Structure formats: structure tokens, C-alpha cells
């Protein structure tokens, strides 16, 4: 599928599992963690996302310019951080998770490790 077309209608999420971050792009239905609670508990949620995995470091410049992560899902610490305005994804989490909306993009990015800030290679 054309990468440009694939990167439409969804948001870019950084998912952290066992300390390692990976990027996924999908529509919000994939980020409603309360809807995926059984898979999260079983540890299979990440497998459900397999087709959504993307490699921003391989994107051409125009895609790198356009896309920034708006969601961090830390499966290790059970934390969801959202910088996405439209749907309050931080409220759609399992009961034992912490969800937080961070309005400022600058503040949000501080929660992403330097090695996962693919866009900074442009600078």
C-alpha cells in the first residue's frame, strides 16, 4: 500500500514494550485501550497491531515533516499519554492504567526518548 495513503485517517503512536519503543499508525479504534483490555491482559495486544507498524526513519522528508507521534502507550508501566486533541483517548483505558492528556506538544515530546525522536534527524 502506498505509504502516503496508509498514513491517513489515523494517528502515530509510540508503543513501549520491555523498554523498547516502536511506532504504529492506525485509526483511533486501535488506541481505545478499554476495548482491548483482554488482549492487553493476555499480552497479545501488540500482535494485534502488527500490520500497523511503521518505520519513520525510512520515510521521505515530506512524511517526516507531517507526522509526529501524538500518543505514547507504555505497556510496561501501564501509562497512556496523549497529545491528541480530538478524542479523549486518555480516558479510554483499563481501570488499572494511568491516562493523561498533555496539551503542549513540547511537553509531550519530553516523554519520548532521544533515540525515538526520528524527526530530530531532520534538524
Amino acid at each position, binding site marked *: 500500500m502506498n505509504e502516503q495513503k496508509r498514513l*491517513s485517517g489515523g494517528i502515530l503512536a509510540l508503543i513501549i514494550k520491555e523498554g523498547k519503543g516502536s511506532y504504529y499508525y492506525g*485509526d*483511533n479504534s486501535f488506541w481505545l485501550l478499554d476495548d482491548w483490555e483482554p488482549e492487553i491482559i493476555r499480552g497479545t495486544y501488540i500482535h494485534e497491531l502488527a500490520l500497523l507498524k511503521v518505520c519513520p526513519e525510512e520515510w521521505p522528508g515530506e512524511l517526516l515533516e507531517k507526522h509526529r507521534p501524538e500518543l505514547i502507550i507504555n505497556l510496561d508501566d501501564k501509562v497512556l499519554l496523549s497529545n491528541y*486533541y*480530538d478524542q*479523549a483517548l486518555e480516558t479510554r483505558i483499563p481501570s488499572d492504567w494511568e491516562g493523561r492528556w498533555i496539551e*503542549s*506538544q513540547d511537553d509531550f515530546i519530553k516523554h519520548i526518548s532521544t533515540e525515538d525522536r526520528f524527526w530530530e534527524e531532520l534538524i
Partner: protein
Amino acid sequence: MKTYPIRKAIFYLFFVLLSILSSAHLPVEGTKTAPNTLEWHISPSDPGCGKAFLKDLNDNPKFAAWFNQLSDQSARDKVVEAWEVAFDAPSLRVNTDWLSRTDNWIRDGVDQAQIKKLLSETELSPQLRHAFELDEINFNSWNRIDRGSPSFRTTNFSGYLATLKKMTRYDNTASSTDVVKYYRVQGGGSGSATSRELLTVEPNGNLTFNDKSRELYFSTDDMDHAIYYTTGQGINILGNTLNVSPPRPDGVIIEFEVPKWLDNQMKSEAIPQHRAGSNPLNNNSPQIVDPTQPGNPFGIKESWQTLIESNYIEGSARIVE
């Protein structure tokens, strides 16, 4: 279950039953012609079925009385057929309202396997049963979710129930005239928030769609969801009062109007957001989102944004102060 031999057997049993009820001094008509033997002809494929019907009549005098007062063979035939379809739902199959409801679905040509599935699920869910009995849920809504998002009911039951009620309400309020107000909460912040303003209200009341590659979220009919999004307060379709931390307290509310026909179309094609990626009914469809929040929020992709962009009521857009 093979319907025809079973029905034959059940009608034979019915006359046997009339004989029994007559001897028990119940007010049953037609007993004079009932056979006086208890020779049961029961289908070898399901010998318990005929007995179960007889037992249901014996154990439920109200059901027996209702069945007995049916005036003609055709009416009794329909009841038996509905009873057979409802066989796996023991409390529903002796409930006259549910038998009538089942009969209506059969007459409407609904797939009987789906009716059986619905009845079996409803038998085990008092909330679902109550909602059906109040006509808050219809078959079409249940069927669309069952075929598209079957895991919804087990993963998030309150969301499932709320979505069923919303889809039914949308079915019931469809009409072809007038316009519907749509609301969107956006922006309100500073700096990077500017890029999230997917709609711009022009001075002449027209809208500019700034980036249709982004999913567009809005709500319809009333401001309930917009108010909830900015204040954290409201009442949802399940009747629950919500009072939470406001999700987006600084949001700006935009209002615009769309023709009712387009609203009808959007709502009739809408699917639950729940696991929409694997929903076989998903054709870039509008999504019913956050069903347990107040109001009627939806999310739409580019093609639907284009449709709304082409058909909304020009000049109707404004910022709600």
C-alpha cells in the same frame, strides 16, 4: 431442528394438551374434538421439542390461556413457529410479547439463525431484554453489531448497550426533511493546538476543511457532547450522570447545519468504533464513538468529510459563544 415435522408433532400435541387441560377444568375451547389418546408423534431428530412445548403450556397457565384463545389455526401456527425459533431461550419462548416480537421478525424475513442468536443472548441479559421491551433497541441495530463487532458485547458491555440504543434511535429518527445541527470542539489551546483546527469558520458562515486526511470528530443533534467535552458534565444514553474532569476545557465549539437526508445517510451507515478495523461492514464508514459519553459523537474519514463539505448548509457555521 427440522421445522415441518416438529410443527406437525406440536399441533398434534396441542390437541392432546387440550384434552389434558379439559380434564384439569381449565377453560379451553374445542376440547370436544380433541383426541382422547396420548399417542405422541415426536420427531426422531428432536424428541424433546414436542414434550417441551407441552410442558411449557402445562407450566405456564398464562401462556396456555393465551395460546388457547387464539382464534384460528394460522395464528397458532405462527406461535408454534415462533416458539420453535425461541426454543433455546426458555423464559422468552413462553412470554407472549416475545413470541409476538419473534413472529414479527420471522414475517419480516429475518434470518432465523440470527433471531435464535439474539434470543439466546437476550435470555441471559436482563439489561438487553429490558431495552428491547422498551423498544430502545431494534433488531437491525443488534444485527449490525453482531455481524460487524461481535466482541463488543463481551469486551465493553456498557459501550455495547449504549451503541445499540443509539443506533436504534438513529433508525427511529430518520426523516427526509429539515436540517440537523452538528457541533465540533476544537482548538482552544495555543501554539501547536492551531494545527488541530480542522475546520475554519469563515466570516460569511461557510466552513473551510483544513486537512481531510485527519479523522474529523463532531457530534450531532444537540450540544450535549460538546458541553461534556468542555465541562465534563452530562447525562448519557444509559441514564448515567457524568461529572468528570473536563476533557478539553478550553475548547471552542463550532456549530453548522447539514441536510437531514445526509444525516440520515451518515447514521444509517455508521458502525461502532469498537475494533472498526476488523469490522466486515466497514467501508470507510462513519463511526459511532465514545457511546457512553453524553450526546451523539461520530468520527468520519476523508470521503465523508468531502460529502459534508459539499452538502452542508452554506452560511450556517458559527462559533458558539
